[in-house]
C-alpha cells in the first residue's frame, strides 16, 4: 500500500506488476527493474546473481544507491519476521485500503494472511 501512496506523489504512474517479480518491468520506478532483481538476489543468496545485479546497479545508479537499497531490503527481512513471528494482523486502515490490489499482487492466498477480527 505504501508503494501506491508514495507513487501518487511522483510524475509517472507507479504500477504493482514489479512486486510479482523481475521481468515485469520497472513498475514506473527509477531503476525499478534492478532494485527488484537486487531484492530477489538477496533473498536467494546465490553469489553469482547477487554479484551481477550489484555490479549493474552500481554502474547505473552509484554506490550510495546500492548500499541504501541493500539496507532497505535487509530491513524488510527483519520486519517480515517480526510480523510473522508475532502473528501481526493487518491494520484496519491498511486492510480496507489494500483490498483492490491484494489480488493483483497475489498475496491473498499466503499462509501469513491475517486480519483484525471483526468486533
Amino acid at each position, binding site marked *: 500500500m*505504501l*508503494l501506491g*501512496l*508514495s507513487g501518487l*506523489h511522483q510524475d509517472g504512474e507507479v504500477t504493482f506488476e514489479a*512486486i*510479482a*517479480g523481475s521481468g515485469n518491468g520497472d*513498475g514506473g*520506478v*527509477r*531503476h525499478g527493474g534492478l*532494485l*527488484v532483481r*537486487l*531484492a*530477489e538476489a*538477496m*533473498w536467494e*543468496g546465490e553469489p553469482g546473481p*547477487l*554479484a551481477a545485479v*550489484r555490479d549493474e546497479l552500481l554502474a547505473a545508479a*552509484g*554506490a*550510495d*544507491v*546500492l*548500499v*541504501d*537499497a*541493500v*539496507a*532497505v*531490503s*535487509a*530491513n*524488510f*527481512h*527483519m*520486519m*517480515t*519476521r*517480526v*510480523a*510473522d*513471528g*508475532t*502473528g*501481526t*494482523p493487518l*491494520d484496519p486502515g*491498511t486492510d480496507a485500503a489494500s483490498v483492490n490490489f491484494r489480488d493483483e499482487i497475489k*498475496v491473498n492466498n*499466503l*499462509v*501469513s494472511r*491475517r486480519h*483484525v*477480527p471483526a468486533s
Partner: protein
Amino acid sequence: MPTYTTELPVRDELDAAHGEAMAEWSRAGTWWTGTQRLAIVAEVRRARDADLLAPWESPSTVDGLIFDGYPLPDAVVDVVWRLTNHPGTLTSEWHDSILGRGVEALAYVEVVSIVAQVNCVDRFADALELDRVSMPEAEPGEPEGQAPADAEVRLHWVPTADIGGPNVWRALSGVPSELKARSRLSTPHYLEGRAVFGDVVSDRFSLQRVQMELIAARTSKLNECFY
C-alpha cells in the same frame, strides 16, 4: 572503530547501528542471558548457512544438530530455524506448539526480535560481501524477566502492551527493550517505526521513497509476508 571494513559508502549511522546491535545481543536481555542471546545469533547464522530443512522438519529432531549442554532449549532452536528460513509458513497452531514446549510467551517475543534483527544485519553484510559482524564474549548478568503491567494478548499471537501505533509497531511491545532495539536498527535502514505511515513521500538517503517501497514490497512478497 568502524564495524565494517569496506570502500563502499556505508553510512556512519548504519555502521554504528550494526556494531551496537551486536553489543546489545551480548548483554542479558529481559528473558535471556547474554550467552543465550549470542547463541540465538549463532543459531541464525547456522540456520542460514546450513542445507535447507523443509518447514516441517525441526532441527531438534535431526541427529547431530544440537549437542548436550547447548545453551538454548530445543524449542528455541526450532523457532530460530523456522523463522529464519520459512517465516511465511508460521501459523498460530505452530506458535501454540512452541509455548506448549515450555517457552514463556514473552521470552518467545525476545527470540523473535533477535532472530529478526540478526537476519537484517547479516543479510546486509552478505549482500555486500562484507564480513559479518564478529561476535564478542557474552556479558555477565541475569535477565530481569519483567513484563509491562498491561501486557496481554490482544490482536497478535503474543502479548503486547497498549502503546498505540501500527500493529507491527506494537508487535514487540511486550518486551520494551526489544521494541527499542528493533527501532534503533530500522531507523538507519529505512524509517523510524512511527514515521512509516506518517510521511509517504519524502526521499531518504540516496533513494526516492517510491524506490524504497518497491524494494520493501518485493522483499516482503519473497518472504511471503501478508502484512
